[in-house]
């Protein structure tokens, strides 16, 4: 039989790479055994995924990344799951080195997820200063066309310093639930550098006043802000809210979710913050969604009476939902709610 040519052999390596990038990581790896061209294409595969469990996995990953660094092979995606439970400073230095290589090779999507849950691991590398995200921010996910440098560093006071630039970052999810404090130092970052940040989800035990204030009041592009707190004691979003905090200044905000799983029982503070948000919603006709997930609040009649006092001429609300997990006694007679506020739902 006559073949005009052997089809796939004519495909240059760069096109084989394109096809590989449409496959899953494992499928792409399988193709490396087809021929030398496919092997070469695989060795320069732009999407990297690593799951590290055992000690010798670290060696393997290091070998691969050093090759990418030395040959300056571009990396588009870098996904790294750390399942290991090794707490040595050597390993943390390695991880920093790898993240550094990913950045140097123009990574567009980076996922670092640390599943070792090892507190001491983080304590170990307080002093390292490449990308110190792994130190206290346990999961980083971001996407962007040209993500230059994302530096999330932590120092000894568990501070999140978002230093310098995230100009192209469009989606940043911070998840640092079990750290005592996530704070932000404004000296390090001008708000204009956040201008492409569209959504932010932060969950942590405590969010500093400065971070919230800065995020809400300055960027004009933030569309979605989700704050989840598992705080014990004083929930300082309330502190922020009751103070000079002016949510109205964030004109672009479409979705604001504040979730709290802590029993607070400070009805007056709650009232103040809700009042403030209602006021905000009036001023910002674009706000579509405001969801309070207040699992664990102690409710009382005073609170609902307070709710009734809200201005009745607000036209800008699209949705207000109140979700409570604990509802002992609600006097339904007091529930003559402001007509645009949905009847509270509660779940048990």
């Amino acid at each position: 039989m006559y073949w005009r040519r052997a089809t796939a052999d004519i495909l240059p390596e760069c096109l084989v790479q394109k096809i590989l990038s449409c496959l899953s990581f494992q499928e792409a790896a399988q193709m490396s055994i087809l021929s030398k061209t496919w092997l070469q294409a695989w060795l320069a595969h732009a999407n990297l995924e690593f799951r590290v469990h055992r000690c010798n996995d670290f060696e393997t990953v290091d070998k691969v990344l050093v090759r990418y660094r030395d040959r300056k092979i571009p990396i588009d995606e870098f996904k790294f799951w750390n399942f290991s439970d090794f707490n040595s400073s050597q390993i943390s230095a390695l991880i920093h080195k790898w993240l550094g290589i990913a950045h140097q090779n123009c990574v567009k999507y980076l996922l670092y997820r640390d599943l070792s849950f090892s507190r001491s691991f983080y304590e170990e590398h307080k002093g390292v200063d490449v990308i110190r995200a792994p130190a206290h921010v346990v999961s980083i996910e971001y996407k962007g066309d040209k993500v230059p440098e994302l530096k999330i560093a932590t120092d000894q006071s568990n501070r999140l310093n978002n230093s310098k630039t995230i100009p192209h970052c469009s989606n940043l999810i911070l998840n640092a639930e079990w750290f005592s404090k996530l704070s932000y130092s404004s000296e390090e970052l001008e708000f204009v550098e956040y201008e492409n940040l569209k959504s932010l989800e932060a969950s942590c035990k405590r969010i500093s006043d400065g971070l919230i204030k800065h995020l809400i009041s300055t960027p004009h592009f933030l569309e979605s802000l989700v704050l989840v707190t598992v705080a014990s004691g004083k929930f300082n979003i309330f502190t922020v809210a009751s103070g000079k905090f002016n949510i109205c200044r964030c004109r672009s905000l479409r979705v604001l979710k504040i979730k709290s799983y802590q029993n607070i029982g400070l009805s007056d503070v709650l009232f103040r913050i809700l009042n403030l948000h209602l006021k905000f919603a009036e001023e910002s006709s674009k706000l579509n969604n405001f969801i309070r997930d207040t699992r664990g609040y102690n409710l009382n009649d005073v609170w609902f009476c307070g709710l009734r006092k809200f201005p009745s001429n607000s036209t800008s609300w699209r949705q207000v939902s109140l979700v409570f997990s604990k509802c002992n006694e609600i006097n339904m007679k007091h529930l003559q709610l402001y007509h645009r506020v949905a009847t509270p739902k509660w779940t048990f």
Partner: protein
Amino acid sequence: MVKLKSNDDKEFEVEEAAVIQSEMIKNMIEDGCATSVIPLPNIDSKTLIKVIEYLNKHINMGKAAETGEEDDLKEFDEQFVNMGWEELFDVIMAANYLNIHELMELCCQSAADRLKNKSVRAVREMLKITNDLTEEEEQEIINDAPWAFEGPEIDDTVN
């Protein structure tokens, strides 16, 4: 109108709005290098006809979203990639040369979808790949990434 000439000396007239989806030709036009016929020495007429068919259909990509023709385009794309491997690779090469990003994505995705779950033997046969690796090299690849070659039974058919 822009004239394109394939490597077998056939000329094709294409609307400028369609042909500028090719970054390469767009640049040529912008630089004023596209005054007469644009020769495409890497593309035969059969492939060029396919590419032009794609360009004409995708001429108003932006508008499609507004007018609800997205489904129509999607259907067209599905039909479009329904071709043999040889032809598909020719189109990929042409799309790469002309720098038509969307077409490139479409064809590479189609190629990848067809390769999914196929055994090494099946892929080699489908793509007529000459295996130039020695047995030792093959074994080394498997040893380097054993996880890649584990997993459920794979499809050994060549369709």
